[in-house]
């Protein structure tokens, strides 16, 4: 059932890639050319169009990781574990991108590469959790156990994220308020259009990358299983006198 569904989605994944890529291209054009500079931040505000979507996509990636980890513990299907692994790698990648672009943004805005600001610290901790997750996976030989432990770590980490964020926020708040908040749009419309287009583009592209990477891990497993079967045949025929 899961395999059939995933196969069905995989068939149309090219459209995701195309749509995501086109959104991002349009977003880059709008962000760099087609939008006015911000009144306060000037041209530097253009970094926001790539930084904020990266950050959101990394959180989206962790949410997908959380959901698929729960799914794995429920169904124990190896392809779901491939999806967890893929989501974690991608989320780690996007988190690193968000940290780097955030750092580049911080330099002209606050004249420092790094501040101990709540969101930056939360993202750094998120990055540490994800790299810990990826490290954990390399240290386990039995793939079943690897999948199980990784899923548990992902779930525990996900529950911890809001607590980490709150604690760090209480601990130190120097940051400007969130660019898009629930209380009202504090950002002008001209700036919002490229931001939303980039956000959609990154999210769609994330799902495309997720599918590609899941497929990659799945195929690699398939090939290894084949090699393993050949190997155990060789081993057993050697045991035969």
């Amino acid at each position, binding site marked *: 059932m899961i395999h059939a569904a995933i196969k069905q989605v995989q068939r149309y994944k090219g459209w995701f890639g195309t749509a995501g*890529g086109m959104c*991002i*291209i349009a977003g*880059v*054009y709008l*962000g*760099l*050319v087609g939008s006015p*500079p911000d009144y306060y931040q*000037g*041209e*530097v505000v*253009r*970094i926001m169009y*790539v*930084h904020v979507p*990266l950050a959101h996509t990394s959180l989206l990636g962790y949410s997908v990781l959380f959901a698929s980890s729960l799914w794995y513990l429920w169904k124990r299907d190896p392809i779901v574990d491939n999806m967890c692994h893929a989501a974690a790698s991608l989320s780690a*990648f996007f988190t690193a*991108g968000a940290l*780097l*672009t955030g750092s*580049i*943004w911080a*330099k*002209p805005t606050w004249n420092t590469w790094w501040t101990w600001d709540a969101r930056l610290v939360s993202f750094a901790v998120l990055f540490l959790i994800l790299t810990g997750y990826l490290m954990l996976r390399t240290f386990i030989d039995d793939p079943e156990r690897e999948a199980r432990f990784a899923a548990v770590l992902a779930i525990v980490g996900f529950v911890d994220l809001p607590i980490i964020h709150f604690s760090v926020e209480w601990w130190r708040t120097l940051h400007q308020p969130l660019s898009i908040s629930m209380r009202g749009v504090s950002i002008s419309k001209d700036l919002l259009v490229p931001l939303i287009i980039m956000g959609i583009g990154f999210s769609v*592209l994330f799902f495309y*990358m997720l599918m*590609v*990477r899941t*497929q*990659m891990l799945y*195929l*690699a497993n*398939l*090939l290894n299983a*084949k090699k393993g*079967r050949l190997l155990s*045949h060789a081993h057993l*025929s050697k045991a035969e006198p």
Partner: protein
Amino acid sequence: MTGFYLRWGGLLVVAAILAFLVARNYERNLANLTPEDLLADPPSRAVRVLGLVRGGTLTGDQASGRLRFDLSGTRETLTVQYDGPPMENLRELKTLVVVGRWDPSARTFRAHDIALVTNYGFVVGAYLVGLVPLALFLFTMERKVGLLHHEIKQSKLYEPEMMDA
């Protein structure tokens, strides 16, 4: 795999076009001239000139938005007549960018806007750091998938195994 390389080739072309558009936009609307550049070869279109407001030359009323000051580069100095929205934070000895046209007859720069000095290196750097590794990552991933497909076809995985027993 041919389709794969075609797709990425196409993406590369689009990226090149995008880079060209961005660079042209920068040249047209965002690049700064120094007072030396301006005096050496006065352009007729609107330009942006970067310089330092010379001490003791700022005259006019900040609130009204009609100001006159000297903007100096490394060697040359030009007179700027600013006529635009009121500026709150204009003061002497400040580095800024004036946007406007050079009036050769009055040997005055008629500015209609004053912009902040920005380092575009940061913007370009952030876009490159954000997007290039992403593309490379996706490229290697897709390539790996293609190679794995190929290898699986080669290893005849879907054919029944030879059981020796």
